[in-house]
């Protein structure tokens, strides 16, 4: 019997046309994954009647057929835009400047028509599963003193089959020494401030996909375009050395700061750099932060929720790379 190793599992992804969610598209990017749990789910309902015998189950059916799971990867400027498009919903791309293109991702409030993707997972020679109408339930970013890590939790239709021919380019895989964090009273104020050294940073974009609304009479599967987003929750945390009362005072007085987190990599043009940036409009610090380490340093662990702000909105993500999305529309096919 042939055995298949985990590294023989290959993943490709393409964003589907907004006009035709659930219609397969070719893979636009191949993801060097670090964690994967995406798979078919055939949820069972058990028939458990009283029939004069002691055995509890007398019959069963498939209650719901769909796919769900997560995909972990190290963020880079090639892969990240696809997941930001899926997680946030709106993208605006610039024309070329200094050999680089700037893509700005913002929250789409039209929650009934989220961006969808075709995801193909080749499991060695066993099978290649194709997940259509995949939406991003949540996107998580975490970075401490290593490579950064993103985890996308995805929900899709029950898989079919596909074939893929993968390619992998060498990219700048972002790590902790490549990011800075700037705080301020507003985003414009933060951009002019000095960076604050952090021990760690996490960000979670949770779309709370309404999966219970996707199963209607006539089918136990998700229809094309049948997944809608719920309310958006943006939360996260950061930790830093407790060296003065500035950060503690923010928690105690509910002082709402803006935060700009920027990863920068290699030069693209003469001065443009590969960039992934998160602009968070208003952080509400939610948990008591002081951590007393008897053998170490005092640390503040700030947990936050992002509040909407009329000027700074809630979250804007910016990616600078060499992809001309204004013509190719790989991040937002019409």
């Amino acid at each position, binding site marked *: 019997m042939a055995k298949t190793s985990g590294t023989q599992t290959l993943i490709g992804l393409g964003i589907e046309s907004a006009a035709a969610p659930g219609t397969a598209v070719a893979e636009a990017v191949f993801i060097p994954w670090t964690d994967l749990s995406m798979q078919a789910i055939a949820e069972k309902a058990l028939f458990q009647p009283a029939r004069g015998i002691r055995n509890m189950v007398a019959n069963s059916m498939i209650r719901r057929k769909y796919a769900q799971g997560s995909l972990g990867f190290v963020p880079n400027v090639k892969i990240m835009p696809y997941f930001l498009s899926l997680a946030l919903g709106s993208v605006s791309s610039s024309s070329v400047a200094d050999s680089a293109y700037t893509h700005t991702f913002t929250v789409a409030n039209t929650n009934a028509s989220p961006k969808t993707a075709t995801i193909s997972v080749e499991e060695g020679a066993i099978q290649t599963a194709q997940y259509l109408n995949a939406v991003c339930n949540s996107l998580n970013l975490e970075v401490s003193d290593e490579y950064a890590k993103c985890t996308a939790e995805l929900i899709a239709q029950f898989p079919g089959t596909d074939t893929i*021919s993968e*390619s*992998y380019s060498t990219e700048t895989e972002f790590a902790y020494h490549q990011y800075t964090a700037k705080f301020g009273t507003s985003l414009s104020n933060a951009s002019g401030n000095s960076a604050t050294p952090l021990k760690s940073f996490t960000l979670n974009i949770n779309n709370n996909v309404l999966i219970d609304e996707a199963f209607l009479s006539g089918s136990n599967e998700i229809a094309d375009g049948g997944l809608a987003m719920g309310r958006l929750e943006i939360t996260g945390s950061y930790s830093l050395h407790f060296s003065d009362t500035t950060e503690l005072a923010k928690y105690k007085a509910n002082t709402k700061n803006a935060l700009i987190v920027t990863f920068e990599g290699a030069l693209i043009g003469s001065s443009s750099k590969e960039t992934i940036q998160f602009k968070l409009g208003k952080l509400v610090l939610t948990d008591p932060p002081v951590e007393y380490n008897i053998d170490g340093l005092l640390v503040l662990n700030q947990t936050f929720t992002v509040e909407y702000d009329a000027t700074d909105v809630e979250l804007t993500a910016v990616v600078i790379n060499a992809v001309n999305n204004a013509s190719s529309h790989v991040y937002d096919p019409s």
Partner: protein
Amino acid sequence: MRVTSTKDIVFPKVKFNIRAGEVKDLPEDKDAQARILAEAEISEVRERGKLKN
């Protein structure tokens, strides 16, 4: 046909790889050629015409 790339790229299935800036002949197989040329980072290198004496 010769191609070049803006990045190091590997194509495991078609057994082809190329380094950033390298100029390389495409494999003979037409499907492999199509797959490689579909990559945004790869472009064809036009042969320069020979000068007449």
